[in-house]
């Protein structure tokens, strides 16, 4: 039996299969209390399935979960009472006006939530008297986000809330997220915009092929970025053999060395790359590198390099 405590999202051994496809292998997750956690992974990695399971929309084949102290049981109603959710799909009822739709989305919430939803929608400058079928993709997304942020709850699960937003509206959304997180809310956020994830998240959970491949804090990511050395060579005959020889030679000097196509990826044990660079320079027959990068890697590059997983 898992421990169920306030403000936390806990999953143990969550498994889900759709026919032949294993959407989630046994997956364990702990988020919160408080803070914004980014749920990252390529399309089809299981992020949405995991979020839907946590909110009670999809039943897991095995495993157990709790959100803000409520265990995942039955149709997950207790969880949905304690946690708001912004879905990844944005099909809405076009015949409703924005205000009516917001109220529809907030059914089961208190009056304060409805008032707050309207306030948030106004911050997005949404035309609430217009019918939703006239809304753009981004406006629909903002309406869903306003509804998800409106109730005062301890946990929110947001599936790609900024997808389709222009940079200005994305900034407004990130600002709202920061304000919400500052009040102690636990937010599990899935996004394909790694730049924004990088800006708001304190923790990153990487999912690949239904498995959790890494959990990192922002600080550990930055530290890893500072230790990553990437050496690129021009493609040539015999390059593969040379890179393999270099990998073997550098292995004792680094935490991890890997080869990807014409690149050598070195994760240093410390911050100083000089010993590795010296070994590279001294290696007999090694050509001059075409490019050399150290200490600067985007989140996606970092994860591709470290885990061999395309982040998005």
């Amino acid at each position: 039996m898992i421990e169920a405590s306030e403000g936390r999202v806990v999953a143990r051994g969550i498994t889900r299969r759709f026919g032949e496809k294993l959407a989630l292998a046994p997956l364990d997750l702990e988020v919160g209390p408080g803070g914004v956690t980014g749920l990252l992974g390529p399309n089809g990695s299981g992020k949405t399935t995991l979020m839907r399971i946590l909110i009670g929309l999809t039943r897991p084949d095995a495993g157990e979960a709790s959100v803000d102290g409520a265990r995942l049981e039955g149709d997950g109603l207790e969880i949905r009472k304690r946690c708001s959710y912004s879905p990844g799909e944005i099909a809405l009822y076009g015949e409703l006006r924005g205000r009516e739709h917001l109220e529809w989305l907030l059914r089961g919430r208190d009056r304060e939530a409805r008032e707050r939803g309207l306030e948030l929608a106004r911050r997005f400058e949404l035309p609430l008297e217009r019918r939703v079928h006239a809304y753009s993709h981004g406006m629909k997304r903002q309406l869903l986000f306003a509804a998800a942020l409106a109730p005062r709850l301890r946990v929110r699960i947001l599936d790609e809330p900024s997808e389709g937003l222009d940079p200005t509206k994305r900034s407004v959304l990130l600002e709202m997220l920061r304000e919400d997180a500052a009040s102690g809310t636990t937010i599990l956020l899935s996004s394909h915009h790694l730049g924004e994830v990088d800006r708001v998240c304190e923790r990153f959970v990487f999912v690949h092929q239904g498995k959790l491949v890494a959990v990192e804090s922002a600080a550990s990511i930055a530290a890893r970025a500072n230790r990553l050395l990437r050496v690129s060579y021009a493609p040539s005959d015999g390059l593969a053999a040379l890179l393999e020889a270099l990998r073997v030679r550098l292995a004792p000097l680094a935490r991890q060395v890997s080869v990807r196509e014409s690149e050598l990826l070195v994760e240093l044990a410390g911050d100083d790359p000089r010993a590795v660079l010296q070994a590279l320079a001294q290696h007999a027959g090694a050509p001059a590198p075409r490019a050399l990068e150290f200490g600067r890697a985007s989140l996606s590059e970092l994860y591709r390099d470290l885990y061999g997983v395309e982040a998005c």
Partner: protein
Amino acid sequence: MARAFASILWRGVGFFIVLELMLVPALLYWPDFDKHVAKFRAMAPLPVMRNIIDTLETGGVFAYVTGQHFFKGCNTLGVAAAVLLSVGAVAGEAHRGTLEIWLARPVSRWRLLTERYVQGAGALCIPVFATTLTIPALLERVNETLPYGPLMWSAAHTCLLLMAFYSLGFFLSTISRAPLSIAFVLLFFSILQFAIYLVEKATHYSLFRLTDVERFLEIQKRGGLDPRLAAPLVLVSLALYGASLWTFARRTP
């Protein structure tokens, strides 16, 4: 809830208007039918149709009214309405991609589905009863009278069959993403049932035997529903509603 209610309300009002539009001329035609019934019998191309006319003749105005309103009007339009009101209940949401936001609110699935079931059932059955209530007043225009009791029992009996159709459509809606396909299957099934009804040797296998004029004359004679017919229809609807709840609880957006 208000959104779904408004949509269902308009469909119910539409069903009422169409039923009434069929009922008014049919009832006003009663004196002519009564006068020329022999000619109608001679024109009937099938033995089953001649039997219907015989039953209408012997049953008098009550048989004619129930034949026109329940057997013809409610069985045809009612089945179509049952299909239209049921197939979109869940499959319609899945088809247009709104199933996820519908389910994501803090409302139990049991409640969501029950609300929708009850609203659709109301839109289906209330027009049947409402149009039935107008029958005595319409009959006064042709100098006939009928008491409300047997008519309302007949309306209730018709609604039981319509509810079985509705519940079947509702159940299929909970397991499908294609409301149009379900609608075609159910409409084909109902047309097949009508076709079977018209075949003399097969007519007893048609579901519409459960709501033909002979059944309504039995209801008039008994002064109430026949439990041997009503109970199975109620059980079918309840079983299909229960199955709908079970499948909907496991439905993935």
